[in-house]
C-alpha cells in the first residue's frame, strides 16, 4: 500500500520540476491583450460582423432593407434631403431615418443618416439615465473647422426609374447616383465609379427599441433583443447602455482600387492588410478606440492611442478617400476581391452616433489631402523650436539634473532645443505645482534654459488629483467642470495621482477655466519658454474598462462618453492649445502654442503634435515607426513622431544610434525613456556612437529651413511632411506598398532609415527615372526600381532627387534659436536637363505676425540652358511684409552648391582649363540694382558614377530680395580678376 501511495508522489515531484522549467521558457507576451476587446467581445462589432456574414453568405439572397421615400426627396442649397425607411421584419411600421447629402464646393460630399424618433426625443432610456436621446451630432464641432460648410450651389438633379443622379464638382465631372431601393450611392468621376456606399448591403442602423422582456421558458428571444445590446460586462466593468443597441454600420467599396491607406493609429503597414483571415491577413478588424495600450505589439490591427477615421484608396491615376465622422468605438473590416482588377471593400461599424460619411473624389493625392484639410483644417504652423530636437525622459528628477543635462549637451556640442519634464516634477502628481524639494526655483531653471533660446515642456494630464488643499481640484468641483458618472455625480477613477477627477473639456466653461490656469502669473514657475505635453488623454483610467472611462459616463450637454470617446483627447488638447495661445508672454503679446498629445482624432492637426505612444527599445518598434508616421501624414496629421530609442527597455548602442539616424526624419523628433530604463542621453553612449548621433542631429538642424518649409506647405494645402513613394510617384504601381522610405517635403530628399540590427546596406526604391545623387558622396543612382546603398553605422542613407533645390543652414549652433542670424546655403540638385526648383519659407518662428504677412516665402529656380538662378517672392502680401523684411535684412545666402553641374555647364572644358566660369549676382536692394561677381570653386566628378559640383562662394545676397545669379563660361583670353 505504501508503495502504491509512493509512486504518484514520486512522479508528481518529477512533473513539478518539468512544469517549472516549462514556465521558465515560455516567453512573456508583452501587450496585455486580455485588457482589450476583440471584435467578438464587443457586442456591436460581433453583431455587425455576424450581420455581414449572413448578408454575404453564398446561399443568401440578401436585400438591404433600406429604401428612400421618394416623395421626401428635396435638393436645396447644395443639400439633398430625404427620408430613408428601414423595414424591420415582423413589423409594419417602418423606421424613419432622415438622410442628408451635402455637396461642397471643393467636390467633397457628406452623407448623413439620423434616426427620426431619437431626433424627436421620442424614446425611453433604460435605468435612471439622464443621457441625451439624440444620436450624437456634435463630432463636427470638434473635428471640422468652424466655417467648413461651403456649398456647391450648382448641383444638377435628375431622377429616373428609381435612380437619382446628382451631377456636381469641377466642370460637373462628378456624379452621385443614388439608388432608391435598396438604398445605395455610387460616386463617379469622369464616368468611372470610385466609391460605393452600401454596395454589399451591409448598412445597418440599429434603431431604438425598448428592451424586450426575457422570453418565457422554451420560447425564442425576440428578434429585437439584440445579442450584446444591453448591459455588457468586460473585465469586471458593466456598461449599462441606457439606449440599448444603437450601432451604425455601412460598407464602402472602392472598385478597381487595390490599396487603401490611413485610419491611424495602428502599428501596421502603410497599405492596409485585409482583416478577414487568410495568409498575411489579420482576422480582427482595425479598431479605433483611443486607449492606453501598454507595450503595444507591432503588426496588429489593435487599437492604439489615437484615431483618425480617414481612409485613402489609391490606384494608378486616381486617389479617393472617405472620412467616417464618428467618435464612438469603431471597427473597420477590409477585404479585397480580385476579378480582372482588384476591388477593396470595407465595412465600418460604430457603436453609436449618426452615420456620417464624407466622400472625396480626388483625383490626385494632392487634391484629396487639400479637400480633407479644407474640412478638418490644416497642420498648425508650429513655433520653430518645435521641429528641432527634443530631449525627454521619465524623469529629469531635479533642477540640478536639468542643469547637468543642459550643460552636457553643450559640452559634447550636441544641439537640442527642448528639455522635457515628465510627471515627477510635480508636487505629488498635482498638476500646476512643482515638487518643493527637487524643483525649488523653477523660474530660475526656465531662465537658465532660456539663455540658449531653449524651452521646457511640462506634462499636464487631464486627471486632477482628488485630494485636500489642492485649489485646482477644488475649483474643478466647485465650478462643476468635471466629467460625471452615469448617475451624474462627479466621476472618480484612478490614474497617476491615485484617486482623480477628469476635466470635461467639452464644456466651454471648462476651457475658459483651463485657459486661466496657464497664465504666467497663475502657473507659478512657468515662463514664456514653457510649453505643454498632454499625456493620458484617451483618457487613461487605470481602473476603468479597457484602461479608460466607462462608456456610460456623462459629459457636457449630457452626451454619453460612448458617443464622443475618440474626441475626448483632442478636446483636452484643444483646451491646452487655447490656453497656451492665450498666455500673455509680455506686453500683452501672445505666442504660438506647442502641445504634444497622445490621444487624437481628425482635426487635431490644428492644435499641435502627436507621438505614437509607449513603444519599446526593440528593432521591430524602430521598424514600425516610419509606416505609422507616414500613415499620420496621409490622414492629415503629419506633425508626428515616435520615441527615439524606444520608451520601454534599454536599447543597444547600435539600436539607439540607428534610431537617431531614423528619428531625424520624424516630423516630431524627440528622444524619450521610461523611468526604469538606463540613462541614454546621446553623450552617454560613448564613441563612436556619440559622434555619429551628433552628426545625425546636426543634419536635422542643417535642414531645419527645409523642414519648416515643408510644415508651411502642410499648413497651406495638407501635403504630408514626410511622404511615401505612392504620394510622390502616384503612377509607380510597384511602389504603392513601400513604407520604409520617405521623401522630405518638396526637397527631393529621399531617405531610407536603417532599421535592422547589423544591417550595413539597404535597397532604396526609385519611383521614377529621374537622376538621384547620394547626399554625401554625390554618387549617381538612376533607373526606376531598387538600388543598393551602402550604409555602415556612420552612414545615413539619403538621396537627392534631381530637379530640386534644398535650403540649409550649415552652422551648427547649440539650439535652433541660436541659428536665427545665420546665413543659408542652397543646394541645387540639377536634373538631366539642368533644371532645379525649390522653396523656402521663413518667419520669426514664434509670433502670429506671419498671419499678417510677416514672412519670407521664396521660390528658387535654376534654368540650366540659361545658366541662371533666380529668387522670386511668393509672399502674396508684400506691403504687409515690408516691415518684417526690414528686420530680416541681415539674413543672407552664403553659398550655392550645384550638384550635377555638368547637366548645365560644359564642365569638361572647365576641368581641362579650356574655359573659365564666373558668377555675376544681380540683386535688387531697396529699389537699387546691385551687381557683383562671386567666386566659384569647382570639383570635378571622381568618375562617371559620381556627379561634379560647382560652388558659388560667399554670395551675400539677402534672403528678402529678388536676385539672379548669372553663370557664364568664358574663354581664356577674357579673364576678369575674380574668376575661378
Amino acid at each position, binding site marked *: 500500500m505504501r508503495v502504491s501511495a509512493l509512486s504518484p508522489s514520486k512522479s508528481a515531484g518529477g512533473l513539478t520540476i518539468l512544469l517549472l522549467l516549462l514556465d521558465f521558457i515560455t516567453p512573456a507576451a508583452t501587450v496585455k491583450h486580455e485588457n482589450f476587446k476583440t471584435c467578438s467581445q464587443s457586442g456591436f462589432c460581433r453583431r455587425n460582423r455576424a450581420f455581414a456574414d449572413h448578408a454575404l453568405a453564398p446561399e443568401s439572397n440578401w436585400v438591404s432593407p433600406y429604401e428612400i421615400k421618394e416623395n421626401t426627396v428635396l435638393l436645396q442649397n447644395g443639400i439633398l434631403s430625404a427620408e430613408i425607411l428601414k423595414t424591420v421584419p415582423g413589423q409594419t411600421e417602418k423606421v424613419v431615418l432622415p438622410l442628408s447629402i451635402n455637396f461642397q464646393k471643393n467636390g467633397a460630399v457628406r452623407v448623413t443618416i439620423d434616426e427620426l424618433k431619437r431626433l424627436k426625443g421620442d424614446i425611453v432610456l433604460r435605468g435612471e439615465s439622464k443621457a441625451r436621446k439624440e444620436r450624437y451630432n456634435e463630432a463636427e464641432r470638434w473635428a471640422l473647422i468652424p466655417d467648413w460648410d461651403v456649398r456647391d450651389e450648382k448641383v444638377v438633379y435628375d431622377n429616373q426609374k428609381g435612380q437619382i443622379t446628382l451631377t456636381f464638382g469641377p466642370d460637373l465631372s462628378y456624379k452621385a447616383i443614388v439608388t432608391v431601393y435598396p438604398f445605395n450611392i455610387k460616386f463617379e468621376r469622369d464616368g468611372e465609379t470610385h466609391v460605393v456606399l452600401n454596395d454589399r448591403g451591409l448598412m445597418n442602423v440599429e434603431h431604438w427599441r425598448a428592451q424586450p422582456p426575457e422570453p418565457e421558458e422554451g420560447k425564442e428571444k425576440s428578434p429585437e433583443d439584440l445579442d450584446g445590446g444591453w448591459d455588457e460586462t468586460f473585465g469586471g466593468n458593466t456598461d449599462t447602455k441606457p439606449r440599448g443597441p444603437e450601432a451604425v454600420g455601412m460598407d464602402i467599396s472602392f472598385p478597381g482600387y487595390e490599396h487603401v491607406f490611413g485610419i491611424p493609429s495602428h502599428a501596421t503597414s502603410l497599405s492596409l492588410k485585409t482583416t478577414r483571415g487568410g495568409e498575411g491577413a489579420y482576422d480582427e478588424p482595425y479598431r479605433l478606440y483611443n486607449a492606453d495600450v501598454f507595450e503595444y505589439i507591432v503588426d496588429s490591427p489593435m487599437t492604439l492611442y489615437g484615431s483618425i477615421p480617414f481612409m485613402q484608396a489609391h490606384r494608378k491615376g486616381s486617389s479617393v478617400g472617405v472620412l467616417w465622422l464618428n467618435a464612438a468605438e469603431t471597427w473597420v473590416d477590409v477585404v479585397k476581391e480580385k476579378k480582372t482588377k482588384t476591388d477593396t471593400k470595407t465595412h465600418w461599424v460604430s457603436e453609436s452616433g449618426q452615420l456620417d460619411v464624407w466622400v472625396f473624389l480626388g483625383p490626385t493625392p494632392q487634391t484629396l489631402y487639400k479637400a480633407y484639410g479644407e474640412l478638418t483644417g490644416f497642420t498648425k504652423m508650429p513655433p520653430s523650436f518645435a521641429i528641432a530636437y527634443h530631449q525627454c525622459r521619465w524623469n529629469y*528628477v531635479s533642477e540640478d539634473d536639468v542643469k547637468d543635462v543642459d550643460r552636457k549637451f553643450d559640452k559634447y556640442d550636441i544641439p537640442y532645443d527642448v528639455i522635457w519634464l515628465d510627471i515627477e516634477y510635480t508636487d505629488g502628481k498635482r498638476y500646476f505645482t512643482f515638487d518643493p524639494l527637487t524643483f525649488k526655483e523653477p523660474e530660475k531653471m526656465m531662465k537658465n534654459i532660456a539663455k540658449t533660446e531653449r524651452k521646457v515642456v511640462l506634462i499636464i494630464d487631464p486627471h486632477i488629483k482628488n485630494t485636500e488643499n489642492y485649489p485646482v481640484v477644488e475649483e474643478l468641483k466647485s465650478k462643476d467642470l468635471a466629467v460625471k458618472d452615469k448617475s451624474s455625480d462627479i466621476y472618480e477613477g484612478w490614474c497617476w495621482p491615485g484617486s482623480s477627477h477628469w476635466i470635461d473639456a467639452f464644456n466651454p466653461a471648462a476651457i475658459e477655466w483651463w485657459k486661466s490656469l496657464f497664465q504666467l502669473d497663475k502657473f507659478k514657475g512657468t515662463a514664456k519658454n514653457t510649453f505643454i505635453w498632454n499625456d493620458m488623454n484617451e483618457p487613461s483610467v487605470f481602473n476603468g474598462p479597457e484602461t479608460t472611462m466607462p462608456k456610460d459616463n456623462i459629459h457636457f450637454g449630457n452626451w454619453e462618453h460612448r458617443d464622443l470617446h475618440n474626441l475626448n483627447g483632442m478636446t483636452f488638447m484643444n483646451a491646452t492649445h487655447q490656453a497656451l495661445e492665450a498666455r500673455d508672454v509680455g506686453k500683452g503679446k501672445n505666442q504660438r502654442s506647442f502641445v504634444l498629445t497622445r490621444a487624437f482624432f481628425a482635426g487635431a492637426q490644428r492644435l499641435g503634435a502627436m507621438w505614437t505612444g509607449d513603444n519599446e527599445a526593440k528593432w521591430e518598434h524602430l521598424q514600425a515607426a516610419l509606416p505609422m508616421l507616414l500613415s499620420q501624414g496621409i490622414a492629415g496629421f503629419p506633425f508626428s513622431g515616435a520615441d527615439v530609442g524606444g520608451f520601454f527597455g534599454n536599447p543597444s548602442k547600435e539600436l539607439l544610434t540607428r534610431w537617431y539616424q531614423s528619428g531625424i526624419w520624424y516630423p516630431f523628433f524627440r528622444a524619450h525613456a521610461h523611468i526604469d530604463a538606463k540613462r541614454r542621453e546621446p553623450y552617454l553612449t560613448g564613441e563612436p556612437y556619440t559622434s555619429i548621433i551628433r552628426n545625425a542631429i546636426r543634419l536635422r538642424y542643417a535642414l531645419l529651413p527645409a523642414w519648416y518649409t515643408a510644415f508651411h506647405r502642410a499648413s497651406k494645402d495638407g501635403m504630408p511632411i514626410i511622404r511615401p513613394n505612392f504620394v510622390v510617384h502616384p503612377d509607380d504601381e510597384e511602389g504603392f506598398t513601400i513604407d520604409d522610405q520617405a521623401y522630405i517635403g518638396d526637397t527631393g530628399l529621399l531617405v531610407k532609415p536603417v532599421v535592422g540590427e547589423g544591417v550595413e546596406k539597404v535597397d532604396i526604391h526609385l519611383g521614377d527615372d529621374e537622376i538621384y545623387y547620394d547626399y554625401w558622396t554625390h554618387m549617381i543612382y538612376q533607373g526606376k526600381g531598387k538600388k543598393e546603398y551602402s550604409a555602415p553605422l556612420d552612414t545615413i542613407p539619403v538621396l537627392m532627387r534631381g530637379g530640386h533645390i534644398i535650403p540649409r543652414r550649415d552652422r*551648427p549652433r547649440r539650439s535652433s534659436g541660436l*541659428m536665427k542670424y545665420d546665413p543659408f546655403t542652397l543646394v541645387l540638385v540639377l536634373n538631366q536637363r539642368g533644371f532645379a526648383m525649390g522653396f523656402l519659407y521663413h518667419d520669426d518662428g514664434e509670433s502670429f505676425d506671419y498671419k499678417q504677412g510677416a514672412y519670407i516665402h521664396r521660390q528658387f529656380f535654376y534654368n540650366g540652358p540659361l545658366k541662371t538662378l533666380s529668387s522670386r517672392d511668393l509672399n502674396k502680401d508684400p506691403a504687409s511684409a515690408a516691415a518684417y523684411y526690414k528686420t530680416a535684412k541681415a539674413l543672407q545666402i552664403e553659398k550655392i552648391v550645384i550638384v550635377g553641374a555638368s547637366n548645365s555647364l560644359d564642365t569638361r572644358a572647365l576641368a581641362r582649363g579650356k574655359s573659365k566660369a564666373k558668377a555675376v549676382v544681380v540683386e535688387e536692394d531697396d529699389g537699387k540694382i546691385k551687381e557683383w561677381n562671386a567666386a566659384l570653386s569647382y570639383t570635378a566628378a571622381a568618375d562617371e558614377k559620381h556627379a561634379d559640383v560647382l560652388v558659388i562662394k560667399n554670395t551675400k545676397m539677402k534672403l528678402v530680395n529678388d536676385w539672379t545669379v548669372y553663370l557664364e563660361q568664358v574663354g581664356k583670353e577674357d579673364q576678369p580678376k575674380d574668376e575661378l
Partner: protein
Amino acid sequence: MKSILLLSLPLALADGSQKPIGDAWALPRGLNPALSEKYRPSSSQTFSCLTKPEIQIPISLVNDDFCDCPDGTDEPGTAACAHLNTSLNPLKGFYCQNKGHAPAHIPFNRVNDGICDYEVCCDGSDEWMGVGGIKCPDRCEEIGKEARKAAEEKRKLYETGIRAYQKLVQKAVLAKKEVEDKIVALTGEVKRYEGLVEEKKAGLKKAEEEEKLRLAASGATGDEGKSKHQKLLDYSKEKLSAHQDKLARLFEESQRLKDELEKTEKILKTFKEEYNPNFNDEGVKRAVNAWEDYLASKTTEEEVWSSEYLASLTDLMYESHQWDNYEPEEEEPTPDAYGIEAFLPPFLRPIVHDQLSNLRTSLVEYGLLAPRKPKATTKTTGALSPHIQKLTDDLSSTESTLSSKNTELSNLQSDLTKDYGPESVFRSLKDVCTEAASGEYTYSFCHLGRATQKNRDGGSTHLGDWTGFERRFDDEIEQDVTVIKYERGLRCWNGPERSAYVYLRCSAEEQILSVAETEKCVYKYVATSPAVCGEVAAEGQEGISMGEANRQVN
C-alpha cells in the same frame, strides 16, 4: 562692372580684422597670438591653409565669414567653418584675449550666435558682429577679480585641507602601528598556545593509556556487552520504525507545503508578468521587487530535492530491514543514537544526518520530543573517568582559544595588506559617516562601511557596502579623482543591485555636495574630504586652481 566688384570687396570683409596697432599688419580676429606668424601676409598676399599649405587663398579671404580652407583655418574669427569636424581644425577655437583674466578658446560655433558667453569669453569678443543688436561689454575686470578671489578662497581651503590630510596621515600611521604591534603580540601568544596544546595532547594520551590498562585489569566483558547489544537492537528496531513513520508523515507534509508554495509562487509569477509597470504603482512595484529578491535568494529545487535524493528518501521511509543480520554474534563498535545512518548508503548519510538532526531539533523546539540527554553519550562511550573527561575538556578549550587567536591574527595581517588609499589615509576615517539631504531622501556613506538612502518616514535602503577605491574622471571639474565604491546593495526592482560611487574632492571638511541617481540604481555622490588633498598636493598648486579657472567648454 569691375569697379562695382572692387567696391563690394571691403563690404564682404565686414569687420573681419582688428585695427592695425603700429604695425601695418593686424592680427586676425580670434587668433591665438602664438600663431600670428602663420597668418602674416606673404609677399603674394596669400594665406596657406594650415594643414593643407598647398591650398592658398587671397589673404583678403581670411575672416571673411565664408569657409574656404578644408581645415577651417581661414576663419579664426567667425563661425563660418564651425560645421567642420573639430578634429580637422588645428585651431582650438576662437581665442578670447580676456585681458584682466585668463585667455581662453571658445568653440567656433559659439561665435556670433547672439549670446555673450562670459564664462569663457569675459571680454565679450565672441560677439563682435553684434548680430540681432547684441552687445557684450568687456567684463573681464570684474569676472577676473571674482575668479581670483574664488581661486584664493579655494587655495586657502585646499591648504587647510592639506593640513587636515597630514593629520589624517599621522593618525593612520599610528593606527597602522597599533595593528602591527598587535600582530607582534598575537604571534607570541599563538606560539605559546601551540605549545600548550601539544603539552595537553600528550597528557591526555598518557591518561587514556593508563585508563585502558585499568579497565583490562577489572575484567569487564561479554554478558553485559551482549545484553547491551540486544537492548540496543530492540531499541533501534523500535526507533527506526518510529522514525520511518515520522519521516513519511513529514515527507507528506513537506509535499503539501511544497504544493502550496508552488501555487503561491505561480500566483506571484503571474502577478509579476501581468501587472502594468507603466502604472508605476509603488505598492505593486515593492511587491514585485520583494518577489524578485525572494527568487534571487531562493535555493533551487534541484539543490534540495534532487531525484536521487527523493528516491533514497522514499527508500529510507519504506525499506524493511533484515534485522537478523544484526543479531548479536560478536562485539561490535556501538553505533550512536542516530543509528539508522549506519544502514544507509554512504552518499545519503550526511543528508539524512542533517535532516534528522534538523527534524529532531524542530521537534524538540515544538515540544514534541524530549531533548537528547547528554547522559546517553556517556552511557554509550562507556565509563570515561572524570579525570580523562577533564583533560579532554581542557584540551578542547585550549585548542579553541588557539584557533580564535589565529583568526584574529590573520585578520590583522590581511588588514595590513588592505587598500586604505594613499598613505593608508582612509584608515583614520574608518566608520566616519557623512550625510546630506537631497530631494526627498537623506543620503549617507560611512568610510569603509556602507552607503544608505533614508527616506522621510524613517525607512532606509542599503545602497552598497564599501568595496574599495578607483580613479575616475569627474566631468564637472574635469579631473581624475578618487572614487569610493559601495557595491552589492539592495537589488532594484527590475534592475541591478544598487551601488554608490563617491567622487571625492579635496577640502578640510567631510561633506556631501550632491547626490544623483545617474543611472537606474547607480548613485553618484560628490563629496569633499581631506583624505584626497594629498593627491592634489602631489599634482601641485596649478592642478588646484586650474580646475576652476580653466572651465572653458570644449
